[in-house]
């Protein structure tokens, strides 16, 4: 119900919002408002999940905090708006959120026809399947005829149809928008398999399975798609696009240079490395180019740490290894263009 209205209201916002007023300056709006409005998931452990006191944690949340720290100087000046898969793009298009940091896959259609721009990849993921152990399924290729639980409006929904078509198999989808309802249906046995990004499967298995029953479910070895997840902004505001992109790159660069939340102050004042001095604003210029304070990335690192620290804090509890998301220098593909 809620979703229907949100979509309708967001669509109405597109119709009604005056084009002169909602000009392209997202950064100005954030500064005058004094807070960043960040679209997150409705609850996915490791990425964005509120605790019992309403405090949000996760990798996607840390990106929001880093952005707020870089733009406003404080990682607490963030308002989190939980969005379902169906609501997320309309909410961003209509200006309800400034940035969508919500385990969202980069694809051509989304980057173009939806009027959105993807910034950078914060997590290289791929789609997998989870099944009850009792089914004795060892491979996704054995899923012919299965009923599959899935969230609507996702790339997973399309990949799923593609994968079964490509392998000449059939399936019946059960499509529920509310993640909580969908998980409940799967764990009650409504579906034979559950599909989403591998990270989401790990999180769902750990956090949403009935107590003590996590081990009754296995994740199949096949990864059927590429799912580069990252924050998304509205099309038409290049400055804000640059800021989001470079805050993420800055966090990756910081990991590469060994700058952490505990040594960033010391590095900023004492490092002799010109690359580090430039990144941390000891040698000014980068902040000005972005239209931010020279301490932009120092504030971000102080708040959430470098990319590696963000990862270590949020993802290993899900039982996932860093894999592709290691730095390029360590055998992964996480790579930042030079900050200069």
């Amino acid at each position, binding site marked *: *119900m809620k*979703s*229907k209205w949100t*979509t*309708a209201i*967001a*669509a109405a916002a*597109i*119709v*009604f*919002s*005056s*084009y002169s007023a909602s000009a392209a300056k997202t950064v100005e709006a954030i500064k005058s408002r004094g807070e960043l409005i960040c679209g997150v998931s409705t609850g996915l452990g490791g990425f964005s999940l509120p605790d019992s006191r309403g405090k949000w944690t996760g990798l996607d949340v840390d990106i929001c905090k880093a952005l707020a720290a870089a733009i406003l100087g404080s990682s607490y000046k963030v308002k989190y708006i939980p969005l379902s*898969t*169906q609501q997320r*793009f309309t909410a961003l*298009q209509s200006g309800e959120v400034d940035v969508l940091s919500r385990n969202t896959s980069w694809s051509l*259609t*989304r980057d*173009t*026809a*939806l*009027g*959105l721009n993807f910034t950078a990849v914060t997590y290289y993921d791929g789609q997998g399947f989870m099944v009850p152990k*009792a*089914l004795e399924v060892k491979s996704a290729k*054995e*899923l*012919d*005829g*299965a*009923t599959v639980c899935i969230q*609507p*409006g996702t790339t997973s*929904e*399309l990949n*799923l*149809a*593609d994968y*079964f*078509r490509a392998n000449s198999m059939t*399936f*019946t*989808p*059960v*499509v*529920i*928008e*509310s993640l909580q*309802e*969908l998980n*409940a*249906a799967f764990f*009650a*046995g*409504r579906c*034979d398999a559950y599909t989403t990004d591998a990270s989401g499967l790990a999180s769902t298995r750990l956090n949403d399975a009935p107590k003590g029953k996590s081990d009754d479910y296995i994740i199949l070895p096949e990864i059927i798609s590429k799912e580069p997840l990252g924050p998304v902004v*509205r*099309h*038409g505001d290049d400055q804000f696009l640059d800021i989001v992109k470079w805050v993420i790159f800055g966090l990756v660069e910081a990991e590469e240079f060994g700058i952490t939340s505990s040594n960033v102050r010391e590095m900023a004042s004492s490092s002799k490395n010109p690359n580090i001095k430039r990144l941390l604003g000891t040698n000014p210029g980068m902040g000005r180019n972005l239209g931010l304070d020279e301490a932009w990335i120092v504030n971000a690192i102080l708040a959430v740490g470098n990319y590696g620290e963000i990862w270590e804090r949020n993802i290993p509890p899900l039982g996932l290894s860093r894999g592709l998301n290691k730095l390029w220098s360590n055998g992964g593909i996480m790579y930042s263009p030079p900050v200069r």
Partner: protein
Amino acid sequence: MANAISSFKRTLRIITMNGKEVKAVIFQAAFFFLVAGGAYFLYHNMQVNLERQNIQTGFHYLSLESGFAIGESWISYSPSSSYARAILVGFINTSVVAVLGITLATLIGVFVGVAALSSNWLVSKLTSVYINFLRNLPVLLQIILWYTIVTSPRFLPTVRDFNGENGLEPFLGTIYMTRQGIFMPFFEADIGWLGAAIGLATGIFISIWIRYLSRIRMDKTGQQLPVFWIGTSFILVLPCIGWLLMGAPVGIDYPEMGRFRLSGGATITPEFIAVLFGLTIYASAFIADIVRSGILSVPTGQVEAGRSLGLQEGVIMGRIVLPQALRIIIPPLTSQYLNLTKNSSLAVAVGYPDLVSISNTTLNQTGQAPEAIMIMMIVYLSTSLTTAFFMNWYDKKIQFVER
């Protein structure tokens, strides 16, 4: 010439002397331009906004391949079908649940409504609890409750529980009631069943026609025909004839156990059951109250008059009370039918692939929000207006004809 002048004079007189009409016209015109201008402003604003954000517009996406699968469909559909077809699938699913829901809710509602007037204390209290309890719980909650029940391990087994030597036995040997749905035998696809269906339709038509003829005959001669028996025999015999003529197929398709689920036969999904139960039971409580109050609104003198004429109670109810009650009942009943149809959009909560669910998915995959919302609005509006139009026609037909 003189004629033209006098007509011009008359026009002038109307404009100048009868100022009221002129004012009215001016106000009408001003109001029209205000509304049209407002609509144009909104449309233009939307176009500019969409263009500025580089969001695609237009309806050309409807012919593109949808790429997603749909759980249940009454027409053939696959991920390679177009978005337009996906939306049609959603519309048919919405219509099916709405029509079935309206029919069942009316049957249950009339039954409960009449029972509410029973002189039996227990029956009237029970119906009062039914009405007041169910119509005061939000329908979304009821739908989710039903879904939780029909997918709960507490109440139903899974398909796999029927497997193996120690597996469960299906009901009557062929009907499987599981958390994945109800699986049961169904007629094998064969043209012969079409013959039976045509026979049934013809039978129903003929029986209505006979009823009409017998009424004319009764008006003229006062004699009654056993309409019920004649009609029933047509309805029963004609499908058999159709079935025989088209080759008398006997094939029944039984559900068969596969690796994951039962295939063949007919399947009713838990999503459909939850939506149908939720909508039907919620609406039936309202309809029951409408029927109860409709009957109560007929003056008791009418019943007493019937009794003093020596009519049977059944005849009094059927010929005196109900026709008068119907006049009161129809308008609020129409609005319940419209509510039920619109409430069917709550199906999205449990994943029944209705119009809203599929339109939302389409909206999300293509990003064309205004178009998708517009299509939904047009479909719901035209469905509702059609229902209202039909019910208003029926309402007029049964009103008193004053002579």
